[in-house]
């Protein structure tokens, strides 16, 4: 069997030595464009878990690598003249150049044919297996982009990769405010003399600072000056260090015929979670294992390899994208207290949660919990159980439950949609304010008018299934909502007056009923939401020119009539082309807060039925995070949160203030089909 590997980076070399070690008879050639000692970048990071995998795959390299490692278990966060430290994050790093030397040294005696200085401009002939391990700009991949379903998109900030002779003793994040915007550094040691020092900032900041026009030397000097205090008199070193945008590489499939991709050629993961080299070397192990398992049936092995690696890599890529996006908007968290800022940073990618961090570093979460609970007690409850105060209302904890779920123990109970008038009901079963009474306390009364989504069958049947004999609908514009929906009347001035009066009357009634939180429904395409979106508001009058006008009038009226906590349920984005974008939704939230809204209940979509939602666990968290940080208003968020850990993490990191929890039923027994029946039926009469 002949194997040609393009690219002598960690992935290619490691695969070469693993293959040769496993099967001496295999002819393994590695082609590399550069010289053996040419290398770019500085250090690379491994986690303990990866080291375990390397140890198992090839003990010799594991030994050589770990011998030269820099190790640490601390993350230091330099923020506003404070240094916050979190422990228990076991990492190791090695100079990339050293790693390559070790791998080359191990390859040669095993009989791997290493050819350096060979420009590979096309896929090599004559091999039974061609491996594209030639990095993010893979030549091998580019020959088959269509077949592989390749996508390359920039993600995250502008960044530049330096070295420094300052040896950090922890993974170090540095945040530095400048007149141009926030800059941040990711720095870590990788041997006894040197550290990696990556500087990044959003593109807009980068341009404001004029970095787009500086030479390599000038931008190094700029960074050295900016971080002089942190560098403690040490220098930055350049190694073709130019400002880059990180390319996110994905491929639908990783192999085509006898060609397979490995490492960055197949997938990249943003450097801010430090997983690129780890993924590449794990790919090499998985590919070797698959070839062994399938007895060198190449096609079958490549399928196996892909099946095993793709789910793992996709999860890492998702976390990496979350992390990249976090660093892109980190300036919006600059108002946070240091401990919360640090917790938010540590939990940015979703891979570390409050519970996970408690296992790694109990002291850190205790510090967070006591700060969060504003208590210096020795024993403090986690954020989920911290009371929450809004105006005169103090909720005992952060858990909000939907109607129909057990309310005992919850901090706040949602009423479900209650219509301000009979015409505003969603279905004939929808309560109106006239016939509603709270079932539990504290309660948030969700007041709304369903607009063009009125007059539908009960939701046990379906959603937006029109009633046979409904009633006349009103909306911002005469556009039917979904298939077979009636055309609504355009709400006229008289209608608006009536709706405003209905809301005020309902608010007065809510006060009589002792409601704790009043929540106005500006979401999901109901009447007030229909005004907010260009997809449902085609008016040419003042209510079309200023789509917030009518909803804000209702809000103002209710605010005047209602002294207690006022919340607005808002579709922050339409999740649809030409609809309300997240940025626009945040601007709406800001306007709501200016008009006296105390809390935004963050939802999205349903402005039109054919929107593009991505429902999954926690699908609203990032929207709540942005609304809270950028509109600076407290938020209530759901989005299928299923564990107390979700709540602790969201609330503790300041991504939301209250969470709707969809707890699974608390039972550990389950039904079982009786076995005897199965056995009886197993013998089938012919």
């Amino acid at each position, binding site marked *: 069997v002949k194997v040609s590997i393009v690219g002598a980076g960690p992935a290619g070399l490691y695969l070469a030595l693993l293959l040769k070690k496993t099967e001496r008879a295999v002819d393994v050639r590695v082609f590399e464009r550069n010289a053996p000692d040419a290398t770019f970048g500085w250090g690379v990071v491994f986690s303990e878990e990866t080291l375990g995998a390397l140890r198992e795959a090839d003990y010799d390299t594991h030994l050589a690598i770990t011998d030269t490692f820099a190790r640490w278990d601390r993350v230091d966060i330099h923020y506003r003249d404070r240094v916050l430290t979190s422990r228990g994050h076991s990492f190791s790093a090695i100079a990339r150049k050293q790693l390559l030397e070790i791998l080359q040294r191990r390859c040669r005696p095993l009989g791997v044919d290493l050819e350096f200085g060979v420009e590979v401009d096309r896929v090599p002939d004559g091999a039974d297996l061609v491996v594209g391990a030639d990095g993010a700009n893979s030549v091998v991949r580019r020959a088959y982009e269509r077949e592989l379903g390749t996508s390359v998109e920039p993600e995250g900030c502008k960044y530049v990769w330096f070295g420094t002779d300052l040896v950090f003793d922890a993974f170090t994040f540095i945040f530095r405010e400048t007149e141009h915007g926030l800059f941040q550094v990711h720095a870590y040691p990788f041997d006894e003399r040197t550290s990696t020092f990556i500087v990044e900032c959003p593109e807009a900041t980068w341009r404001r600072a004029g970095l787009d026009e500086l030479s390599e030397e000038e931008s190094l000097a700029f960074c050295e000056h900016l971080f002089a205090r942190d560098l403690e008199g040490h220098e930055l070193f350049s190694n073709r260090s130019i400002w880059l945008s990180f390319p996110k590489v994905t491929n639908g499939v990783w192999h085509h015929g006898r060609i397979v991709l490995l490492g960055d050629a197949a997938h990249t993961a943003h450097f801010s979670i430090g997983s690129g080299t780890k993924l590449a070397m794990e790919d090499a192990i998985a590919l070797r294992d698959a070839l062994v398992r399938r007895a060198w049936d190449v096609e079958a092995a490549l399928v196996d390899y892909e099946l095993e690696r793709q789910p793992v890599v996709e999860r890492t890529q998702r976390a990496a994208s979350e992390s990249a996006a976090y660093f892109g908007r980190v300036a919006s968290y600059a108002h946070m207290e240091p401990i919360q800022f640090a917790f938010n940073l540590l939990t940015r990618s979703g891979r570390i949660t409050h519970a996970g961090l408690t296992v790694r570093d109990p002291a850190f979460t205790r510090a967070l919990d006591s700060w969060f609970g504003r208590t210096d007690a020795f024993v403090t409850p986690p954020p989920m159980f911290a009371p929450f105060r809004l105006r005169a209302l103090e909720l005992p904890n952060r858990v909000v439950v939907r109607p129909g779920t057990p309310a005992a123990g919850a901090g706040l109970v949602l009423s479900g949609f209650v219509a301000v008038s009979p015409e505003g009901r969603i279905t004939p079963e929808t309560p109106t304010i006239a016939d509603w009474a709270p079932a539990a306390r504290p309660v948030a009364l969700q007041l709304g008018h369903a607009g063009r989504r009125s007059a539908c069958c009960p*939701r*046990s049947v379906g*959603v937006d299934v029109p009633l046979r004999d409904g009633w006349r609908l009103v909306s911002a514009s005469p556009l039917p909502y*979904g298939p*077979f929906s009636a055309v609504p009347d355009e709400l006229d001035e008289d209608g608006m007056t009536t709706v405003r009066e209905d809301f005020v009357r309902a608010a007065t009634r809510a006060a009589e009923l002792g409601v704790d939180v009043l929540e106005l429904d500006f979401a999901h395409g109901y009447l007030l939401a229909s005004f907010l979106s260009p997809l449902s508001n085609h008016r040419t009058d003042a209510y079309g020119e200023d789509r917030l006008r009518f909803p804000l009038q209702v809000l103002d009226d209710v605010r005047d009539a209602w002294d207690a906590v006022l919340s607005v349920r808002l579709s922050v984005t339409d999740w649809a082309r030409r609809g309300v974008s997240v940025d626009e939704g945040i601007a709406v939230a800001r306007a709501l807060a200016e008009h006296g809204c105390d809390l935004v209940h963050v*939802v999205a979509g*349903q402005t039109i*039925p054919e*929107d593009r939602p991505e*429902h999954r666990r926690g699908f609203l968290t990032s929207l709540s995070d942005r609304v809270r940080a950028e509109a600076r208003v407290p938020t209530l968020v759901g989005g299928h949160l299923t564990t107390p850990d979700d709540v602790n993490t969201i609330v503790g990191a300041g991504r939301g203030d209250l969470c709707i929890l969809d707890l699974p039923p608390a039972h550990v027994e389950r039904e079982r089909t009786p076995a005897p029946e199965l056995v009886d039926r197993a013998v089938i009469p012919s």
Partner: protein
Amino acid sequence: VNIGVGLPTTTPGTDGALLLEWARRADAGPFSSLAVLDRLVYDSVEPFAALAGAAAVTARVRLATMIVIGPLHPAALLAKQAASVHTLSGGRLTLGLAVGARLDDYQVAGVEHRGRGRRLSEQLAYLRGDVDADRIGPARDGIELLVGGGSGQAYARMARYADGYAHNGGPPRAFAGAAARARAAWRDLGRPGRPRLWGQGYFALGDIERGNAYLRDYYAFTGPFAERIVAANLTSARAIRDFVRGYEEEGCDELVLFPTVADVAELDRLAEAVAG
């Protein structure tokens, strides 16, 4: 989890006698449903015709489409076909609908491929809303509706109009991800209770190579994905039991195992595997 079995309407060597015998035995066996696949450009039996035949020789099992490519049919015709099978079977139809994965099915049917999602939504609204029910019988009451598909819109469509979700196969972990998305969509659309979750897998317990060859051919249009589907073919009793257990743990309500070999002995082998 309930275990259903597929009717071999798409496998080579199928004929009318075999399909009816298969249905009869499935009805007598430990299976709770009998399901069909849909493909126009292939040597396969039309799903509603197959289920109508099965209805005539069965009395107990649910009859399910996993799935029918809805937009290939006009909504009224689809409703009529489904309601007819429902009537013929005494109310045992589960109608799974999706947009399907192949362009050529649309081309040959002379139906626009663009806008297929929107048309599926219209069909679901038509079925669920009993539109034209006063003039187009038989009655659709009690037809269980499922929606399949992996896009965000498919899950939303499911939560809006259907009773549950039809997953397109894969390891239990993939099903778990889909189940979470289905539940999240269900909550977001304000539906009470929870969605019914249907899963599926392929098996070959006798002539494995024949089964794999069929899968390679049936999924040739997916290019390299065909080999992945072959790799997932359940070819031992142990693999089937692990698969069932995995799906059960992830909250699957109905797991349909589709044959890849048209041989009634496969039914006996499956029954044994499931029972053992």
